[in-house]
């Protein structure tokens, strides 16, 4: 079993660049790279020449200048005296907000619709098919506009909440759906609120502890312990007790309608209709795609799996949780994550309802006022690219973990 030495090296001949499989790839790559660099050089040169001709430069200094415009939804303090950079940040946060809300809701909607589409109930199944097909086959932009219009047509104006015999009433007396937006109460942290926070944290820890304990107990004795109810109790009861003991340190700032002048709500937080419309439209649109993914995922688990579980005596609920879902999830999660990616990119359609996302601030008003198209669009693209890369990074990690487990 001799380990043979390397084959003798022959002298290098130029014809090998094309004829030798070791070098040909290199040759091609060098040529391709050269062409690519030439193209880039060409573009950059044009850019420099054109910018010079227009008397512009490439400078991000404008981000520090005063923005001068108002944004009607800012998650961080913002006035029109703040800089363009801060306006962009406000837009970024707004984009992320609607993307996060959309993803969560789309998942809920999609899972529900996907499961209902498989339901034995003919009517429900058909209804869900109509929903899925309607949303998948009509452009999202149209849906955003339509949802916005439906929303403002179907909700009452704040004036309708006025007076003793108001035509409209609030949900639980707290939440008001109006055609301006949804007004929800907001907690005001009073004295002692910190204690409450600590209690809440403690009970969350306790709840997690209980779950772990319950699992251990079950493994040891076989008897499962109630998890859901106990968790709820741990989370709610101590909080209530401390809340009462401390004399209600947290109060709700409930929105109230102004009775004089132009009707409007004061207090609480206003969830803008543009946000709601965008949110609903994105969630329903993406939800339709997710429904298909979920349906395919569940169908991908063969009927034999259910039957085997049933034959072992597992109840339908447990079968779903222990056998079907874990298998369906592997099929569902990767396309699901790419739907999240699509949804995030689609938030850029916010412009249709005037929601102040990053495209509207950085890529809209800022770009328009400062005339810095190149810099603004570059930053805008970079932001979306980074978000996308993060999301697809998560996807890759998940795929790798599955691959590990499958092995």
């Amino acid at each position, binding site marked *: 079993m001799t380990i043979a030495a390397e084959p003798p090296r022959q002298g290098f001949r130029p014809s090998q660049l*094309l004829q030798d499989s070791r070098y040909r*790839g290199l040759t*091609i*790559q060098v040529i*391709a*790279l050269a062409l*690519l660099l030439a193209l880039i050089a060409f*573009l950059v040169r*044009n*850019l420099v*020449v*054109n*910018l010079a*001709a227009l008397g512009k430069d490439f400078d991000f200094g404008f981000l520090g200048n005063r923005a001068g415009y108002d944004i009607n939804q800012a998650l961080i303090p913002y006035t029109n005296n703040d800089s363009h950079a801060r306006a962009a940040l406000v837009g970024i946060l707004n984009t992320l907000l609607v993307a996060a809300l959309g993803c969560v809701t789309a998942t809920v909607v999609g899972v529900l619709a996907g499961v*209902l589409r498989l*339901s*034995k*109930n*003919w*009517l*429900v199944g058909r*209804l869900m098919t109509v929903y899925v*097909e*309607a949303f*998948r*086959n*009509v*452009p*999202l*932009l*149209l849906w955003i*506009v*339509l949802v916005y*219009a439906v929303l403002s047509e179907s909700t009452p104006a704040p004036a309708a909440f006025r007076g003793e015999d108001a035509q409209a009433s609030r949900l639980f007396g707290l939440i008001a759906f109006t055609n301006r937006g949804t007004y929800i109460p907001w907690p005001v942290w009073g004295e002692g609120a910190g204690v409450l926070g600590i209690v809440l944290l403690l009970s969350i820890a306790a709840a997690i502890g209980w779950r772990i304990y319950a699992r251990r107990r079950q493994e040891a004795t076989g008897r499962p312990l109630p998890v859901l109810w106990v968790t709820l109790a741990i989370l709610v009861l101590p909080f209530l007790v401390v809340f009462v003991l401390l004399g209600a340190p947290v109060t709700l700032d409930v929105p109230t309608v102004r009775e004089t002048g132009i009707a409007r709500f004061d207090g609480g937080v206003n969830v803008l209709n543009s946000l709601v419309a965008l949110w609903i439209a994105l969630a329903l649109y993406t939800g339709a795609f997710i429904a298909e993914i979920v349906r395919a995922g569940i169908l991908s688990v063969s009927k034999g799996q259910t039957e085997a579980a049933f034959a072992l005596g597992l109840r339908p609920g447990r079968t779903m949780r222990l056998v079907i879902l874990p298998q369906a999830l592997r099929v569902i999660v990767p396309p699901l994550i790419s739907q999240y990616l699509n949804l995030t*990119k*689609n938030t*850029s*359609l916010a*412009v*249709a309802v005037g929601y102040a996302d990053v*495209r509207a601030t950085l*890529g809209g008003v800022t770009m328009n006022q400062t005339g810095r*198209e*190149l810099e603004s*669009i570059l930053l*805008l*693209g970079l932001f*979306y*690219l980074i*978000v*996308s*890369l993060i999301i*697809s990074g998560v996807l890759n990690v998940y795929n790798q973990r599955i691959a590990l487990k499958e092995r």
Partner: protein
Amino acid sequence: MSDLHSQTVAYSRDTMLPPVPPPRREAGAVRWLRENLFSGPLNIILTILAIWVLWLALRDVLPWAWRGIWNAGSISECRTIRDQLYGEGTSAACWAVIRARWQQLVFGFYPASELWRPPLALVVFLLAVLPILFADLPRRLLWLTAAAPFLIVWLLWGGPIWGPVAVALGFGLGWLAWRIVARAGGPLLGAVAAILVPVLYWIFVDAPLTAALARILPIGLTPVRSSDFGGFTLSIVIGLSGITLSLPLGILLALARRSEMFIISKVAVIYIEVIRGVPLIVWLLVAQVLLNYFLPSGTNFDILLRVIIMVTLFSSAYIAEVIRGGLAALPRGQYEAADALGLGYWQAMQLIVLPQALKISIPGIVNSFIGLFKDTTLVSIISLFDPMRMSSTIRATTEWGGIYWELYIFVAAVFFVFCFAMSRYSMWLEQRLERSHR
């Protein structure tokens, strides 16, 4: 025989029982209703909920749509007619706007005398696609496929026929150069020649040649400007040209991404990820405001062309991923068999791999097309007259200001019909493929 015991098991049936229809509750409409609508408490609740949702959704919409007025010259006329028919203030749609402006919704500002051209171009396109989809058609039809792009461009934009002919000639020259040079100097030189000759031809010879030919033999159609394209014609033009143009690019990208050459595959990966990571609307912004910065100063081609270029670059990244899936679905054995027979890389790709991979990818390509077709509505944001923008423009006229839902519903319905048909087609294809693979 109920008392069968293992010691006295012997049993043989001498008369076979005939089949009996099931008990009543197991058959017919009763069974259907019970199984499909009322099979349990949860099911009953769901049924009731579904009916309630349907009622909510249709209660107001159906009468409004049904009462719709189809014949009127403006919205105020619509309102007068409505007041006469149903009384003051009843809700009724004013579909008349669609009758009055359907031409703009479908064709944009395309000259009224030339309206036959876009549909004819679409027919040519469909005919050209046929020989690709159905391998059993005569191969000679592929010539139509090759000629179709030029024919379609000519039909849509008009002008002397010599423009497209001269451009096509360039491709012919490239092919000729390839044949001659590749034989003499090897494939790499051949490729260089096949690129260089037509490019030089297009830069230096094309324009004068076209002009000369047009002077000698003036055959042509009325020229139509890009800015006259609008409505669904615009959507279809952008969508179809985006998909077809991105196909070759997507194939190259997919092959590059699967290539073993490090630089090539990484460049492809970066391109694909960057394109897919940024929303189309930002790319359209780039097309609208940035593209000019990157081109030699003075070049200024029209926005439609820029949008088509951007859309092509955009969808090529998506198509590349679809085709990569198709390539991955091909068993390794196909590559090996091609290698073992002595076929070169491009021969193997052209003869063995791509025909199969593309066939597998057709449903995916159709799906990308549906997505792209829907996304063409985004060009409204950069002021191209797609159906959405066309609707707002119609609303800006004094006759139809105040119309809202009718136009959107019409646009949505047309999109739905197109996309739904295509998605069903791609599903059918997928199923057929699945079957033929077994």
